[in-house]
């Protein structure tokens, strides 16, 4: 008995499973952001949210119908060359965007922690509820 997953080339679980996990991560992230007083914790919530988005992106990339090609229009490749071998598989877009989200998360974490440390130095604490300089 071979692996059932290998039979139909699809991942072990259907798209909805991944989306549900993503949604749960997202909700957890939002909950964390909303309820935590500690700025570092809030940052963790943001990371959760970004991860949730990434799970969705990759899941869609894997499951959902993709455009015909990633190549530019009007440029002919030499004959016999598979455009997917040059421009990449068309469905890879989701993965690429997930990679960009990872980059974004890294940049965001770096800057956010800089800000958090600034708050810490100034207020002696990292309670985001005390950062109300913009209060009207």
């Amino acid at each position, binding site marked *: 008995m071979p692996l059932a997953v290998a039979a139909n080339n699809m991942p072990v679980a259907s798209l909805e499973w991944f989306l549900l996990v993503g949604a749960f991560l997202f909700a957890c992230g939002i909950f964390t952001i909303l309820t935590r007083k500690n700025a570092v914790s809030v940052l963790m919530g943001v990371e959760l949210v970004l991860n949730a988005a990434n799970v969705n992106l990759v899941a869609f990339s894997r499951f959902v119908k993709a455009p015909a090609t990633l190549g530019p229009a009007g440029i002919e490749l030499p004959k016999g060359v598979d455009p997917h071998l040059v421009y990449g598989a068309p469905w890879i877009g989701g993965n690429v965007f997930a990679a960009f989200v990872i980059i974004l998360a890294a940049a965001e974490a770096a800057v956010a922690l800089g800000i958090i440390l600034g708050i810490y130095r100034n207020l002696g604490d990292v309670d985001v*509820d005390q950062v109300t300089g913009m*209060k009207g």
Partner: protein
Amino acid sequence: MAHGHDDHGHGSGHDAGHGSAAPGGHDDHGHGGGHDDHAHGAAAAGGHGGGHETHFQPAGMSRGLAVLVLALGVAGGFFSLGVTGHFDFGGRVIDLNDLFDTPWPALTVLCLPLVAAFVQIFVGRKLPRRGDWVSTGAVMVGLAISLMMFGRMIGIYDWQFQRIHEIEWIGLFTRSAPGQPDVTSFRIPMGILIDNITVIMLVVVTLISTLVHIFSMGYMVDEPRYSRFYAFLSIFTFSMLGLILCHNVFALYMFWELVGLSSYLLIGFWFEKKSAADAQKKAFLANRVGDIGMFLGIVTFFYFTGQITYAGIFKGVAEGAFSNHMGLLTIAGCLLFCGAIGKSAQFPLHVWLPDAMEGPTPVSALIHAATMVAAGVYLVTRMFPVFTPDALIVVAWFGGITAIFAATIALCANDIKKVLAYSTVSQLGYMIMGLGASAYTNGFFHLWTHAFFKACLFLGSGSVIHAVHTQDMREMGGLWKKMPITFGAMLLSTFAIAGVPGTSGFTSKDGILGDLLFAAHHHAALWPIVVFAFVGAGLTAFYMFRLIFMTFTGKPKVQEKFDHAHESPWVMAAPLVILGALAILSDKGGWFQELVGPPPSAASAAIRMDLIAHGQPVVEEAKESAHEGGEHESAEAHPSNEAASAETSTSARRHPYEDPLEHEKHPAHTTAMIISIFVAGSGIFLSWLTYQKKVISAPKIAAALPGVHNLLLNKYYVDEFITYFLVQPFLALAYGCARFDLKVIDFTVNAWGYFTVLCSRVAGLFDQKVVDGTVNGTADVVQSAGTALSRFQTGRIKTYLAWSVAGALLLVGGFHLVTNWKHVFVRRPAAVVEPAK
């Protein structure tokens, strides 16, 4: 070659003696007419002994000469390499047709100066010798490649030779439909065009630029901003090369502006001087005036043809893009010519060029004599097919007026560089005039020859200024003994510009005059131009020899300056020698006439030829003679004839240009030659009489004609005219507007204000009693509401997030729930998995 030490060899040794052999005759004149021949004679006697000055350094000079010969040999080597067309590099045969068949050589020539400029800007000061060798080396490499190209051009010898390398620069896509390939809706190509004109211009620009770079090593050596100067020179070289290499008008316009920018930077190089700063602004603004016209012209052509490449525009015009608007085509041509008016300093906008002499002299030589100002001429040459006959008449008139106009001003100028500047303006007028009179080949030929002798003259004047530290010719005199090389080179160039037979200037100017005469026979509107041209030729000879006589011969006016004068170091002298030789030699061979011909006709060519040849079907003849049987009957309307070029690129057959009207033009040329020799001779003679023999007294003439003299001294009051009739009116208009604003509008406003105050007094009572009650009530409501609502603005980011998430939820979920409440709880069928393809 660039490694010459700071060798201020005040060379006037044996080698220099050769150069002064011919001027020796003039020296005798100096003796004859000299007022103070005692001291002069003593000096001359010493001079004949060889090195009357204490600084006698034959070693430096001979080394310079050796380098010179070596350089000429190398240059000749590159040239002959190009002529050969291939060379054997250790078994690998390198095909030099690749110079044209690939874009990289041309791009190398283009980009090296840019790289050098960046190097100079960022690290120039830290480099040894302050980095002058970077710029010089860059442009020298460009010169080598250009010379190879030049040789290859001679080797190919096809007047219709042309190569275009283009890429898509901007392509805007329109998405047609999902899954369908996108459609390109708009493309702007970028590329380079190489043809004979380009190659010739390349050689001119790189050669002059190289020599000026070398010259500047001596001239600018004391300059604290030395490396910046070289950076600017490199930027200029880059811009100019880009201008001549690009294949479309957009790029042309960009580089055109870049050239303007570098000119701005270089004119104001000594920006501490107010005059220099003013001059640079003036040059910039004057150019902008012309450029607006040019831009409008470009836009017009783009609007009608939808193309920006030269070939595309010509094709579009030939295919009748303007067929319903021939008048507009004329206007567009004139607008395009506006750019040339600005850049080539034609009549109304010439004012910037003399002032531009505030820049360092090498700059004047490079930019304001040889190359940049030629850009306008180049523009007209390049866009020649789109000029209608009417537009050409306009062009010719502008050129003619400029030629005579500047020549007369030069008569009275005393600043050596101003004289040269006005002579430049005048010569540019000749070129423009020639192009306007359909003397395409000779007009462009004059650009080529003029570049050399004018650069030589400017560099020579730089050498003189370097020696005597003044620009006023009235303080010079007798310098030929001190500066024999400078004198020799400048004399040769003066012969050329005056049109002495045997020199290059004679050939080109005579060609223009002949063509002009021929054209005037067929178009009466050109007759005044002919008169202008011949008178201008005489005046040119006169004032140029005036310059020579006042500067080099006679006795020194200011002895102190004369004593300190010395021959320039060899880095300055060598370019002079080369350019002096080229001033004589650059017309030899006749290749130019055979390689540069008017381009195949666009829309207006048939009409133009009709104009010139009275309806003879010369167009067809020209085509057939060029194509040897005319493979393409329709070639006249197609600038891009691939079959012909594919043949020329490979075969060794020569395709020289044959002027179909050569026989018709012959009498005119003969006449023109005779007249011009006479005119030039008389100009020289009069000049000799006036400034050497002092038979004719110039001050007396000036006193006799005070009005004319003042007019000329004040340059026809053009600057004043512009000031009073353009600047002042605009200022007055502005003042007027301001006064209108102050008096009328403000009065109205104030009156309205008083009225309002009055009304409000009345209304105030009502307001305080009735309205305030309402308003205060409202305000209280608003305030309490605001206080309540401001609690939402907690300043806490989390609260905001909560609200936004809740809002999004409400929008997405709530809306869906409200609209689809029936379907929310009904399950849809499961998704279907498509099988693998």
